[in-house]
C-alpha cells in the first residue's frame, strides 16, 4: 500500500511533498501551541514505532498478502502528532527497507496522514460523552474507514500517475481487485482499533487524551 519510487511523475511527487509539508506544518503549529509540547513526544514516538513495525507485518489474504496500515489507530491515539509520526515512520521504512520511497514520501504521507486526521476528527466529533457501545462502533468505523480512505487515495494517485492510455475496463478491474483484497484488512483494523480503544478506556483513560 506504499507507492514506491520511480512510478509517479515528478509533478505528482512534488505535489505530495507540498501537501505533506503543509499538513506537518499545521500539525506542529497545533502541537507547539500547547503548554508543554514535549510532554507527548514519548507516546508519539512509541506509536511511530508501532506504525513502522506494523507495515512490515504482512497478513495473508490468499492469493496475495496485505499489510497493516494503522492510520486509524495513529489518528485516534495521537491526534495532531499523527502526521509527523507517520512521516517519520515512512521515512525509516523507505531508508531501511525500501518500503515506499524517498521521492514518494510526500505522497505516501498523504495516503496515510489524511485518513489518520479523518479518524481523529471522527472520534473527536462522535465520541464525546457517548455510550460504550457507540464508542466501539465509532472506533471500528475510524479504523476500517481509514483503511478504505487510504486505499482510495492510493489507487487514485497511482492511476493519476500512470499513462492516460490505460484500458478503462482493466482499470476498473484492477481497482476492484485492490479494494476486495483490502476489505478484510479494513475489518481487521476496525476490530483492532475497537479492541485497543476499549482496553485503554477501561484501563488507562488518560492515554486516550489525543489531540
Amino acid at each position: 500500500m506504499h507507492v514506491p519510487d520511480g512510478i509517479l511523475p515528478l509533478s505528482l511527487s512534488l505535489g505530495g511533498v507540498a501537501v505533506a509539508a503543509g499538513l506537518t506544518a499545521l500539525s506542529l503549529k497545533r502541537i507547539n501551541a500547547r503548554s508543554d509540547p514535549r510532554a507527548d513526544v514519548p507516546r508519539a514516538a512509541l506509536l511511530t514505532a508501532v506504525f513502522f513495525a506494523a507495515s512490515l507485518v504482512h497478513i495473508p489474504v490468499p492469493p496475495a498478502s496485505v499489510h497493516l496500515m494503522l492510520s486509524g489507530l495513529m489518528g485516534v491515539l495521537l491526534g495532531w502528532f499523527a502526521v509527523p509520526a507517520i512521516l517519520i515512520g515512512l521515512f525509516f521504512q523507505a531508508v531501511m527497507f525500501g518500503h515506499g520511497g524517498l521521492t514518494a514520501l510526500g505522497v505516501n504521507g498523504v495516503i496515510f496522514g489524511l485518513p489518520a486526521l479523518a479518524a481523529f476528527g471522527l472520534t473527536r466529533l462522535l465520541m464525546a460523552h457517548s455510550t460504550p457501545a457507540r464508542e466501539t462502533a465509532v472506533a471500528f468505523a475510524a479504523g476500517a474507514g481509514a483503511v478504505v480512505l487510504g486505499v482510495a487515495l492510493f489507487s487514485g494517485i497511482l492511476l493519476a500517475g500512470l499513462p492516460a492510455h490505460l484500458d478503462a475496463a482493466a482499470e476498473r478491474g484492477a481497482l476492484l481487485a485492490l479494494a476486495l483484497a483490502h476489505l478484510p484488512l479494513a475489518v481487521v483494523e476496525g476490530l483492532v482499533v475497537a479492541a485497543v480503544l476499549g482496553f485503554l478506556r477501561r484501563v488507562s483513560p488518560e492515554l486516550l487524551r489525543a489531540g
Partner: protein
Amino acid sequence: MPADAARPGPIADPRLRVVALVGLAFGFSALAEPWALALMVALTLALAWGFGLPPAALARRLRWPGTVVAAVVILLPLMSGETVLAHIGPLTVRAEGLEVATVIALRFLCIVAVAAALLSAVPLPRLVAALRALGLPALMADMALLMLRHVEDLRQGLRRMRVAMRLRGAPAGFWAGQFRANGWALASLLLRSHAQSERIYHAMIVRGHGAARASPEPFRASRRDWTVLIALLLAGSGLVLLEHVL
C-alpha cells in the same frame, strides 16, 4: 536494525549524502528518454562502485516495494497501449505499456540503489542528527530518535507476550480469530511501553538533552565532500535539463 558495513565513500558528511540522495532521486524520477535512462543507469553504477554498495543492502530494499513495482510492471504491458507486440495465450502484450513499464522499473531500481549506496553505511541515529542539522524540527528529531529505540523493544516485547499467550493455549497464526486478544496484547504493550518511553525521555533530559549550551552533533564537510556533492547534483540536474530541452 543493521547498519551495513561499507567504506566511507567519496562523501563523508551524512548531511551532504542526504542532499545528494534527494537531488538525484527527484532528478531520476523526471527521466523517461532512453538515452537519459542509460546515463542514469551509468551514473548509478558509478555511485554504487564509488560508495561500495553492499549487495545485501540492495536486496533488502528490493523486497518490500518489489511486489507493487512487479505488479505495475507486469500489468502495464497487458493493459495499456495500442500497438500489439505479441499474443501469449489469452494475453496481449502492447508496446506502449511495455515502454512505460521499462521506464518505471529502471527508475525504481536506480533510485533504490542510489539510496542504498548513500545511506546504508550511515548509522540511523547519525542520520537523524544529520536531518536535524538540515532543518528537521527538534520535536520530530526527538520522535525519530525515540522511535529507533522502541522498535526493537516492541518487537521483543510482542514476541515474549505471544509466547506467554501460546503457553496459555492461544492458537498461533494471524487468522486464529483472536482479534480481541491480539488487540488487548497490543494495548498492553502500548501501555507498558508508554511508561518506559517516558522513562527513556526523562533519562535523556536528565543528561541534558536539548540543553541550551549543548554542543551540536559534530558534522564536518570536507572540500572533497562539497566537490563530489556538487558534481553529483550537476550530473543529475544536467540530465533533467537535457531531457526537457532536447
